[in-house]
């Protein structure tokens, strides 16, 4: 069952096709990644999901019915560029953002207290936003996004600017929300992050969806002939070896593509024979990053698309 279905969305600004016939499905209870480069059309798509922009054509179906203004009550949106009223205090800020979603009262207040405790901000209730550190402001922003208990969460680069401890805390909360059956949509251009968090993805480039589906099946499809390797030693001899098509170094891991699917065994043997210490050898695995580069990088030199000004 799909929680959200996007059908043939189109949006043009002047002569620029920001979103050009986009369709994808977000299954119930999934973490969905909308990935693409800066200016690919992610934000425009998200704005259409939430009725901020009215699409030129196409529709967004929410649990079987087209979205209306009421969808806004069920959604929590954390945009990449954050903003809070600097002179408001923490508590008023949280209450205001709940109130515009139609939520107020005891229940919301206790939820707010709970989250403030969890983020260790309970003693900052009466502080003005401008007196908080950037990281703390971000935490308040996140609480404001989820305080009204939304069914849908749309998070645009939620971890940027957070320290490792808070990143972990945030991830824990996101996983909790997923387990509660919330639909979570990530928009990001960070592939390794999308890879770790998402189970469904849609890859958007130049306003078009160029790949979508379950991450596992996409990886399986693109992953044969591919080996994900972690090692100690020297593998430069592979560069011109007849069974190897391509070696790509990503720092921590190296992706090796062999010419034929059955050659992965031969590759492992080759590595051992050459005294390379193999720490990890993942056959038929490919990183999202590589898929992304493969699909998007190919036509990189095509005519540069005029970027939509307001995204």
């Amino acid at each position, binding site marked *: 069952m799909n929680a959200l279905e996007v059908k043939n969305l189109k949006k043009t600004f002047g002569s620029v096709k920001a979103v050009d016939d986009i369709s994808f499905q977000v299954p119930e209870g999934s973490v969905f990644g909308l990935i693409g480069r800066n200016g690919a059309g992610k934000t425009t798509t998200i704005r259409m999901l939430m009725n901020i922009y009215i699409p030129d054509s196409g529709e967004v179906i929410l649990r079987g019915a087209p979205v209306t203004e009421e969808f806004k009550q069920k959604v929590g*949106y954390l945009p990449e560029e954050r903003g809070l009223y600097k002179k*408001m205090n923490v508590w008023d800020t949280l209450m205001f953002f709940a109130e515009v979603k139609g939520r107020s009262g005891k229940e919301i207040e206790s939820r707010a207290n709970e989250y403030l405790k969890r983020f260790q901000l309970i003693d900052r209730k009466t502080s003005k936003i401008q007196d908080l550190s950037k990281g703390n402001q971000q935490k308040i922003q996140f609480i404001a996004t989820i305080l009204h208990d939304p069914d849908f969460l749309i998070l645009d680069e939620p971890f940027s600017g957070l320290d490792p401890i808070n990143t972990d805390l945030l991830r824990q909360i996101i996983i909790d929300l997923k387990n509660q059956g919330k639909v979570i949509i990530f928009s990001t251009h960070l592939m390794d992050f999308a890879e770790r968090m998402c189970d469904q993805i849609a890859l958007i480039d130049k306003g078009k969806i160029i790949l979508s589906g379950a991450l596992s099946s996409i990886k399986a499809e693109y992953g044969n002939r591919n080996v994900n390797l972690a090692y100690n030693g020297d593998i430069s001899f592979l560069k011109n070896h007849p069974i190897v098509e391509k070696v790509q170094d990503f720092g921590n891991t190296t992706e090796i593509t062999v010419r034929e699917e059955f050659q992965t065994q031969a590759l492992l043997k080759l590595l051992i024979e050459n005294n390379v210490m193999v720490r990890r050898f993942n056959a038929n695995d490919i990183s999202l990053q590589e898929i992304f580069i493969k699909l998007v990088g190919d036509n990189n030199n095509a005519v540069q698309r005029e970027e939509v000004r307001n995204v």
Partner: protein
Amino acid sequence: MFNFRTKAVIKRELKEKILSKTFILMTLLLPLFMIGLLAFNTFLFFYTGEDSAKLIIISESPELTSGLQKDFSKLPIVMNGKYQITFETEPKSKIQGEIENRKKDLLDNKITGVVFIPQTALKDKKIEYYSKSPSNNSLFEKIKGTINQALVDNYFLGRQLSNEDIEYARNSVNFNGFRISSDNKIEETTAGAMIISKLFAFLLYFSLMFIGMMMMRSVVEEKNTKIVEILLSSVNSKEMMIGKIVGTALTGLLQMAIWILPIVLLITSSLFVIPQEYMPTVTLGQMIYFLINYFVGLITFLGLFATVGSIFDNDQDAQSGIWPIMMLIMIPFFISFAVGENPDSMLAKITSLLPFSSIIVMPARMSLVEIPIWQFVVSVIVNVATMLAIFPFAGKIYRIGILLTGKKPQWSEVIKWLRF
């Protein structure tokens, strides 16, 4: 009337604006400032008026000199010693010499001036004044009446005229203005009417500017800090705009009500006592009209200020983009002063019924002349119609503008947004 989203925005605006230090200070300080200005004016008036002077008054005949002496001795400023006057009788031929002798004293300000009344003055009333600063109007004002009296007395001396006739001739013309209204009461126009007219114009001008700029800055801030993006995931641009405008307009209304409260108390109660001639000539009905007119005008202008704010993403650009709107407030403000001179001129009548200008000109006019009810009705209808006509356009520009960042848009682009 409003849905919960709009209400939440209104509530936030009210809380933020009313509790802001600027607002509280402005609301309390402006009346104090106005009272202070009035007091300062009065002080200046008395201060320059009570300046002391040492004068020498020379006439050509002893009769005139004694007449002058007699009349000046009754003048309050002479009696209280502020003006010290010595009287001399010299023929015209010796005047140049006299001046020459006293040149040093005149230059050192030991003597303020020498007044010479030649014999010919009995025919043409032309007198001469020698001083370091010869165009001293306030001094002339104080002494010319008395000199005139002495001349008149001297002129009629020995003729068969009654004291009444002389008394009549001595007095100069004194204007008393009377205001005519349809309820057949002929009232004297008072300084109060003029003050209230200027006060209304000033309050409207100041408040529309102040609240308008506050609105614009708040829209620019929301754009600048990217709060709009989050807000728009909860409310639509229309709800947001209405919420902000209503919240801000209520703040303005509260402020204006506080500002005019002293006037309302003055005309409805006997709490304050002020001289009759400073009594404002407005009725309670006019005060209510004033507030309604202000509220409608404020909403109209807030719509315009918010729209301009939405076009720009920083204060500097917005400031430079706002001038056409500011003109709509400033020009009527200046017209209202011209209206003070002649509240029944064609200019006054027309501008008190035109969109935008009527908001300031009509209240400035209504305390000076009686305005037929139909004109009030027309002005309200015109203002409400203007307000209703503006919002569809303002709303469209606002909707597009608030999400747009980056390069400053051209006006031609903004006009294109109307078609989206």
